[in-house]
């Protein structure tokens, strides 16, 4: 979670009737960097997802990640039920869910690899191939669509210089369309890695891209 004082174009701080800072709306005292070891087991499955620094060869699971994995396992009556959180944890570490990752997770949970493949490919959020440092997901579903989501998407593609679904040459950005992100009152909603950017208009896009590039270069 970045602590660079970047002004998100919208969060009601400047569109609504509430005088709030972005941190207050986001709940910065709650939403910080979650402890890797998972803190209390009841919330161990919540994860940052797609850390900027991914290691496709990382071990599954070692150290604090192993701790978190064990905590997750303890919350379900069957090992199989931990499959979705386990795949998410694997993706957090490795950046995407490859066949080797599916095989390893299957091994950890005593499941057949083919079964894990069937489950992993059902869900949209498991990346089957590596993606850029920042996965830019632009909602183009109806509420955002009515308020110009197509233009926002076009702006992102233009300023990252990529095709839809492809990764930019510098490896920083992959831009995709997303289905409704449940922020319809703040069109257009864009999710970049774990973070929601709301009330994004085409004019806001260059600023967002510059900020992210600077973050990437600064090694955040």
């Amino acid at each position, binding site marked *: 979670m970045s602590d660079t004082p970047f002004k998100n174009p919208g969060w*009601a701080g400047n*569109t*609504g*009737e*509430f005088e*709030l800072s972005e941190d*207050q709306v*986001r*709940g910065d005292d*709650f*939403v910080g960097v*979650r402890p890797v070891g998972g*803190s*209390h*087991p*009841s*919330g161990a*499955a*919540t*994860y*940052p*997802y797609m850390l900027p620094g991914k290691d496709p060869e990382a071990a599954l699971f070692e150290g604090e990640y192993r701790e978190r994995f064990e905590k997750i396992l303890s*919350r*379900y*009556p*069957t090992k*199989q*039920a*931990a499959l*979705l*959180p386990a*795949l*998410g944890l694997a993706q957090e570490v490795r950046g995407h869910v490859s066949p080797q990752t599916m095989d390893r997770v299957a091994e950890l949970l005593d499941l057949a690899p083919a079964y894990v493949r*069937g*489950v992993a490919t*059902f*869900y*949209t*959020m498991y990346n089957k191939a590596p993606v850029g440092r920042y996965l830019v997901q632009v909602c*183009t*579903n*109806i*509420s955002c*669509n*009515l*308020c*110009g989501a197509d233009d926002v998407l076009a702006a992102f593609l233009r300023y990252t210089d990529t095709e839809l679904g492809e990764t930019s040459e510098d490896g920083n950005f992959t831009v995709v369309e*997303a*289905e*409704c*992100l*449940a*922020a*319809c*009152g*703040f069109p257009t909603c864009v*999710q970049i890695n*774990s*973070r*929601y950017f709301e009330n994004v208009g085409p004019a806001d896009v260059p600023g967002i891209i510059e900020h992210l590039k600077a973050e990437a270069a600064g090694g955040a």
Partner: protein
Amino acid sequence: MAYPYVSDREVRVLSRNFGDPMARRLDTYVERGGYQALKKAFEMGQDKVIDEVKTSGLRGRGGAGFPTGVKWSFMPKEPTKPHYLLCNADESEPGTFKDRELIRWDPHQLLEGCLIAAYAIRAKHVYVYCRGEFFETTQILAKALEDAYAKGYAGKDIMGSGVDIDVTVHVGAGAYICGEETGLMNSLEGRRGQPRVKPPFPAAVGAFGMPSTVNNVETLSAVPHIVTHGGQWYRQWGTEKSPGTKLFCVSGHVSKPGNYELPLGFPLTDLIEDVCGGMRGGKALKAVIPGGSSVPILNAEECADCALDYEGVQAAGSQLGCASVIVMDEGTDIVKQVRRMVQFYMHESCGQCTPCREGTAWMTKVLRRIEEGRGTEDDLDTLLQMSRQMTGTTICVLSDSAAAPVVSSIQKFKDEYLALIRRGERVGAA
């Protein structure tokens, strides 16, 4: 008050803490009377709690509108197996954004509701199934839950009552169909999130094969208030058959989109003109989808007399669903928006049932062709016939939901389709 705009027509029950960043802290919540409802529930006893919720007439706020107290009463009174409460926080219906606000502003209200509900249905474990995209939201909930555990409001021997209830935040991975109750249960079990055939019903065979109840976030958030003030109190708002307040998610071409908590039965025209500050840019109203993309579209005429409760919207020709009001002005390209909605259903279909798997894809292709000016008039007959074949023939209602906008738009906005088909003319920009 709802967020990000406030209206004096609102009734502030569930949304009273929206916009207050202190409210999500446990100490603030307790200071303001939090977890007293839970204590009272333990004193009342399980069956009395169910009765109180039945009296209130609270109906499921996830879209189906099934009476919550009745749903709870389906659970066995003498458990021979573990019971589970599943909180449905997989908010993915296009146009809906109330659950996210409820969790991020008032997580303890939801947790208290979950604990009371779990107690009432004799469950010892609650799974809050949150959609995977809700990273920030789930972290707020997880932190709130951690604080609750630390102070003895969750886990073993809650507040010294001898009642044990565990809560786990479970995270999904991007599938709208996991918001369907049996799809949710399958996803929780670590399977593909495909809906199950009913019967057997969740109260008999649910999560992990055990009796389970699935409730929406908004429904559970209302429970502490009903327990505190009584079921009859809840009926002071709304109508006989649709009592209480509802969070209306208004999006689209209004001046002040956002969540508003209003009594059920509130007139749709007042919502748009008064509460939301009228149409954006003073444009004329063209169409409204009153309950999220799964319900039929209403044209401006039908909106005129529409009361926003379950019966009222049905009388106007649509359904209230989850009360996500999507407002479209005169510049809207209806065909494009219908295509986008059907494309959403195609993307989200689980693929089990043939009419849905093949039908949503076929419909999207036909609509795209019409949108690009390459449609023919018998395409419209084909679409209507397809809709008939997709309604009532599948395991879940995603297929029916895909057909609803198609049927209603062809019935009410046929001229737009015909303009594209006959002259390649498109109406509107958005």
